[in-house]
């Protein structure tokens, strides 16, 4: 068992007295850096203080102070607490902040997201296009003065629902002709839909140096995979530039499932966000609930009931097992072995989902966690079923699955040695989760920065060292076994007692401040950044989705490999579009 992470803070102010000040707003922490010296400070943090992992980049619109703030969260892959620093810029377009993409390549998509949703211009970013919304979109929806098409009120609950709640459909109240905002001097006759030159241009730029090495002058071909491609696990589109069958350049295009989860969150009350988090990574609603609950509890500074902590761990680990089972099944599916292995995996998943249904009421959209605990205790029959599965069935079925697939020559041939991602590249690109661990970095939040009661369990951080697809596949089995180990201990240690430390209340009081809570979701580091101003609704609510950030590394991984392997790679990254597009 590791000692709890030390809480020593880094004194950045004395290192850079001229342009770093401590963030002294009540409830806030970290440092405020002058934007002119941002790159210098970031480089020092990376090289001198060893903060090698850029966890999250996001922005907050402080419209009252006329400031736009960019928030960076850094961590060390050796574990321990992180550091947060911010930079502020006047809220006048263009709001320019230097890009940190040269310090951490993992800033790429996150900076593009901040540009897209908040309109912060990252100077020096080589490919600052919109990422979740489409090219040609007017405005930046996460700004506080932006109102969406079916805007009703700033915050829920809406006043029209009670006590005079005569039902009307949203579209009657807000007819279509009124709810679109057109730019000034807009004329439909002259309207030209935005083309995607920028996207294809970004491809060519990166592939210039690869052309015509054999003096044949062969043309490269651009292929658009998706958004309707069965192997992309949803509506991911990937523009690939090919030299024959070899990938020379590649850009993911996303946002087809975008619903602006962050804005929805800012309209909701704290409790109302809980069921919306289910819909992020819809395979692991328990893990999403966990992350959000941990964050808000941090902000509220409340304890969690002891029994609830164990229930949370049990649910999160069951969720991890079923997620990895699906992963294995769908990976084999994408390799061309249709349905038999995936349905074997689904059988065990079905049994786990039955438990979720008996406990929370729904198989996938669990909505089970509350601030300070969980909704209800595990019923006796469900508890028995968990014990039966953990002690009896799942270990045997994991063995059977390994016997079934591990040595299969076709599978080994497709996976071994393909798409090597080394540890430095993985960290540089902010990759987390099993993909990072398969590259040889034993970075698991359950051990590196323990939350909940994970420090009480005896388990190993699964790690493999080749970083190829076969290791990525095997590490999922290792993780299932470690999760079963945790579950066995949790089931033995779980105490009796109340399942919530708070009284059930439909509106919680959250003091002003900020909190960054992160959990090890089956896909990687799932984090929530919540800023409260003391009102019933969060001022800023941001999700750092592991699938989204892991996609940053996809181009690095793919360059020079065959396009047929790309399909397997997407399965291996284990992305879920509900989380990527948010």
């Amino acid at each position, binding site marked *: 068992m590791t000692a709890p992470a030390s809480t020593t803070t880094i004194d950045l102010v004395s290192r850079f007295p001229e342009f770093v000040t401590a963030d002294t707003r009540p409830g806030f922490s970290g440092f405020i850096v002058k934007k002119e010296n941002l790159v210098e400070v970031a480089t020092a943090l990376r090289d001198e203080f060893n903060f090698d992992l850029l966890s999250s980049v996001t922005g907050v619109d402080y419209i009252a102070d006329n400031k736009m703030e960019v928030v960076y969260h850094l961590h060390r892959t050796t574990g321990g607490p992180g550091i947060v620093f911010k930079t502020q810029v006047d809220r006048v377009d263009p709001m320019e902040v230097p890009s940190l993409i040269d310090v951490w390549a993992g800033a790429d998509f996150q900076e593009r997201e901040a540009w897209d949703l908040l309109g912060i211009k990252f100077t020096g970013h080589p490919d600052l296009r919109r990422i979740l919304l489409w090219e040609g979109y007017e405005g930046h929806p996460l700004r506080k003065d932006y109102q969406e098409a079916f805007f009703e009120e700033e915050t829920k609950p809406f006043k029209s*629902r009670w006590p005079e*709640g005569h*039902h009307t459909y949203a579209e009657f109240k807000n007819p279509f002709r009124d709810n679109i905002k057109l730019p000034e001097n807009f004329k439909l006759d002259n309207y030209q839909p935005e083309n995607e030159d920028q996207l294809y241009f970004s491809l060519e730029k990166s592939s210039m140096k690869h052309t015509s090495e054999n003096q044949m002058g062969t043309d490269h071909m651009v292929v658009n995979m998706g958004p309707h491609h069965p192997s992309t696990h949803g509506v991911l589109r990937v523009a690939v530039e090919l030299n024959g069958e070899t990938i020379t350049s590649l850009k993911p295009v996303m946002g087809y499932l975008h619903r602006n989860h962050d804005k929805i969150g800012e309209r909701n009350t704290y409790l*109302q966000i809980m069921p919306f988090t289910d819909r992020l990574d819809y395979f692991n609603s328990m893990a999403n609930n966990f992350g959000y609950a941990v964050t808000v509890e941090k902000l509220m500074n409340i304890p969690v009931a002891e029994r609830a902590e164990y229930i949370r761990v049990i649910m999160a680990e069951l969720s991890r097992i079923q997620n990895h089972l699906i992963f294995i099944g769908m990976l084999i599916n994408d390799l061309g072995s249709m349905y038999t292995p995936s349905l074997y995996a689904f059988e065990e998943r079905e*049994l786990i989902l*039955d438990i979720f249904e008996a406990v929370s009421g729904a198989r996938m*959209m669990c909505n089970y966690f509350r601030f300070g605990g969980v909704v209800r205790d595990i019923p006796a029959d469900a508890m028995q079923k968990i014990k039966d599965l953990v002690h009896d069935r799942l270990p045997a079925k994991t063995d059977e699955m390994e*016997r079934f697939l*591990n*040595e299969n020559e076709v599978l080994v041939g497709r996976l071994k040695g393909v798409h090597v991602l080394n540890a430095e590249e993985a960290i540089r690109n902010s990759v987390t989760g099993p993909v990072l661990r398969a590259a040889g970095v034993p970075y698991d939040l359950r051990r590196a920065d323990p939350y909940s009661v994970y420090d009480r369990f005896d388990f190993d951080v699964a790690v493999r060292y080749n970083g190829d697809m076969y290791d990525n596949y095997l590490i999922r089995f290792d993780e299932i076994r470690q999760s079963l180990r945790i579950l066995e201990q949790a089931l033995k240690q779980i105490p009796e007692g109340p399942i919530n430390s708070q009284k059930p209340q439909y509106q919680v009081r959250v003091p002003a401040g900020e909190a960054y809570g992160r959990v090890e979701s089956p896909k990687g580091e799932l984090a929530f950044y919540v800023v409260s101003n003391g009102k019933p609704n969060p001022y800023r609510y941001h999700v750092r989705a592991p699938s989204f950030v892991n996609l940053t590394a996809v181009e690095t991984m793919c360059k020079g490999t065959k396009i047929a392997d790309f399909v397997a790679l997407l399965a291996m990254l284990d992305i879920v579009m509900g989380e990527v597009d948010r």
Partner: protein
Amino acid sequence: MYGKGILKGLGVTLKRFADTYLDDISWWMQGKKRYFTTEGVAHRSSKNTRGIFTVQYPEEQLIQPEEFRFVPFLVHDGDDKKDVRCTSCGICAKVCPPQCIWIVRTNDPNTGKPVPQPAEFYIDMDVCMNCGFCAEYCPFDAIKMDHDFAIASYGRNVYNLDKLLKPASYYAEIRPLNYQKEEDARKAKEAAKAAKANAAATPAA
């Protein structure tokens, strides 16, 4: 030997294939029906299931646990829909994440003061996200989550008071444990109230 891994894998599939029929035979020898019976479905979703585990919907249906939730309904006591538990306090409308609950409060026509009864109650089932907050936070046990999930229709599903109200006996049927717990709590509360009233009355007398 090249191909050993594949043969090993095929061995697993063959075993799975055989398991289905072995179970069929053993159930048949015991004189039990494995398909189209509750017992059979329960076995197939237990930890002992092996071989085929699919359920032939709609002839067979999975056994719903008590906590299963779909869309909400309103509970009324007695036989007709007069004795509504709802007091139109509006907590469910306030807590609803997609804001799909619409309530019109009844006002006394003479005094204009609110009466604890809903005049109109709508739930837009197309918007409902089945989270169960309304049932969880209702202080009067008046709104509960239903088990009936087959509500698809050709039109839109905005349920009014008439369509939402279901008797308490139905609630007791789908959620017996919860119902019992709530009834016990209510009786205990009433008993405590009566005891308090008695205690207050005794010294006076």
